[in-house]
């Protein structure tokens, strides 16, 4: 339960309320992780928050987190400048099913900050691109200013081996891209529903509709994987806060095969 000390090596502003921290361990040991896992980040005297690892699993010596400042802890993390220190414990939780995705088409669907937990999976797929079939990224953000990793998305697009559609809920006249919800993009994407695997991360309502759209496109629910989120105090299945039906999201998730949680997905206030 004791956090390790990490130092902020670099910091990037992503959007008005979201930033990325690159962290180095004071003990110089790697923090090896699997894409989809998360850490508990501790801001001195303020508390801990569960934050997914958004860096490259092939570079475990450099820990990367993308954080949206929404409350006490995340605002305190937002104040950290290069050289500042914080506590890290982890990694915790389950991973995206990248091994199972080999040889198949891969569909990533992200909403808002949900792109951050998917980024390590996208990086791993792109690094071994030949091992996968067609690769699609569907990404929805509130406004063009809320699009995460815009420069990196442009680089991914330029590779020509990943189909990317970005949409926003609302935009001014200078936005040339899609406007509307991300679920509408499913129909446009080129993938073989019978041999594809989908990974979803975003608001629950967005994932709920995306599951329906993917089903309409012919995908089976057990080929869809979702990353869920709940209040977490301990991340080791003691505090009880993250329970979702019989699941502890910290331990049994955050990444679940959809059919495992389908029973709970439509219940309100679970």
């Amino acid at each position, binding site marked *: *339960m*004791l*956090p390790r*000390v990490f130092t902020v090596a670099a910091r990037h502003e992503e959007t008005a309320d979201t930033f990325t921290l690159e962290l180095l361990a004071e003990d110089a040991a790697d923090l090896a992780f699997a894409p989809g896992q998360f850490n508990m980040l*501790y801001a*001195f*005297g*303020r*508390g*801990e928050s569960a934050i997914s690892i958004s860096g490259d699993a092939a570079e475990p010596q450099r820990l990367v987190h993308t954080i*949206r400042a*929404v*409350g006490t802890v*995340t605002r305190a993390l937002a104040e950290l400048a290069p*050289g*500042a*220190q*914080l*506590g890290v414990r982890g990694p915790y939780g389950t991973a995206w099913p990248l091994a199972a995705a080999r040889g198949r088409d891969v569909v990533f669907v992200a909403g808002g900050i949900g792109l951050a937990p998917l980024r390590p999976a996208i990086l791993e797929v792109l690094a071994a691109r030949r091992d996968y079939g067609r690769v699609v990224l569907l990404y929805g953000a509130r406004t063009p200013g809320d699009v995460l990793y815009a420069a990196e998305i442009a680089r991914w697009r330029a590779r020509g081996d990943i189909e990317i559609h970005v949409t926003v809920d609302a935009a001014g006249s200078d936005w040339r891209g899609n406007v509307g919800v991300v679920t509408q993009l499913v129909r446009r994407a080129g993938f073989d529903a019978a041999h594809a695997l989908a990974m979803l991360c975003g608001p629950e309502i967005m994932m709920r509709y995306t599951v329906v759209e993917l089903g309409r496109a012919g995908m089976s629910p057990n080929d869809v994987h979702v990353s869920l*989120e*709940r*209040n977490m*105090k*301990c991340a*080791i*299945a*003691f*505090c*009880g*806060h993250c*329970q979702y*039906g*019989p699941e*502890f999201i910290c*331990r049994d998730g955050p990444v679940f095969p959809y059919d495992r949680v389908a*029973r709970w997905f439509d*219940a*309100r*206030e*679970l």
Partner: protein
Amino acid sequence: MSEDASAAPRYLERADFDRLLEALAARGYTVIGPRVEGGAIVYDELSTSAELPIGWGDEQEGGHYRLRRRGDAALFGYNLGPSAWKRHLHAPRVKLLEAARDADGRLRFERVPAPQPRRAFLGVRACELAAIGVQDRVLVDGAHVDPHYAARRESLFLVAVNCGQAAATCFCTSMETGPRVQGGHDLALTELLDASRHGFLVEAGSDAGAALLEALPTRAADAADIAAAGAAVANAAAGQVRQMAQAGIRDALYDRLEHPRWDEVASRCLSCANCTMVCPTCFCTTVEDVTDLSGEHAERWRRWDSCFTLDFTHLHGGPARTSAKSRYRQWLTHKLAGWHDQFGESGCVGCGRCITWCPVGIDITEEVAALRALPDPSANGAS
């Protein structure tokens, strides 16, 4: 445990009961047991049997608890008070860590050592022993071990008591946790009190228990003692007026997430969290982070929390469980359904505390019966 540890029950005279307390003290145990405080039975430090609730019984019903004189000198003639042993194992407040930040902003963490008191619990009922086992499964038997609980648990000596009577709120027979203790104890006592004698049938449940028993001034229990002890426990089983059918309960609840009964119970529930505080298996906690005035030292504390609070599910955007209905449903379905998936057993041991200490008398057995009486109209194929 060796073969003969529990082989032969012994008989201990009431007049010699303090030898048991002395033997525990001589082995370095602080004895924690029942005493009367503020009109209720609580578990606190004891040094002599005179401090036990001698001659007290308890009267319990939904939302009702009162101690009453039994008219005899029984040591264990009551059933259960509001506070479970949980308080002494899974402590209400624990310091988890200390952090220091120097003038250059460099951080340092220090683990807070877990105290390892050497304690004996005296008077642990069968349902409570089962509840300790349930919390063991949560806090020490999983992939992670809670060091604070484990330290308190490891050095524990457990003196159990078989119940000789049931409160109106007890339903341990439904949960198959009592009224006879079923293991996990070091010693088990059955109080034998009639016109001709006052003493205890004593059985060892572990090698440590057998060794301690040998040091007590007992005689071999005879057939009459054993029969009287059996009758006492049978009386506690026969006296249970509440039941909760367990067959199929997990799926029955999972199939009733939108049942109208949840709205009905929510209209009575005050979300006061009493039920979770008195429940011997509820384990949820939250954390508090504090800094001192200098801003150089911070501490992280863990304290009991309840799924009945709004903050419990707070995430950016607000709480996931806004309505009282959703919170009562979470409590009940976790306890009686989800627990089976998580830990392979029920999260309820049938102690009835949540019934007694609910200020509006909401009764878990009655709620389950009402839920199961009708299928969920919104569910397909409800069982």
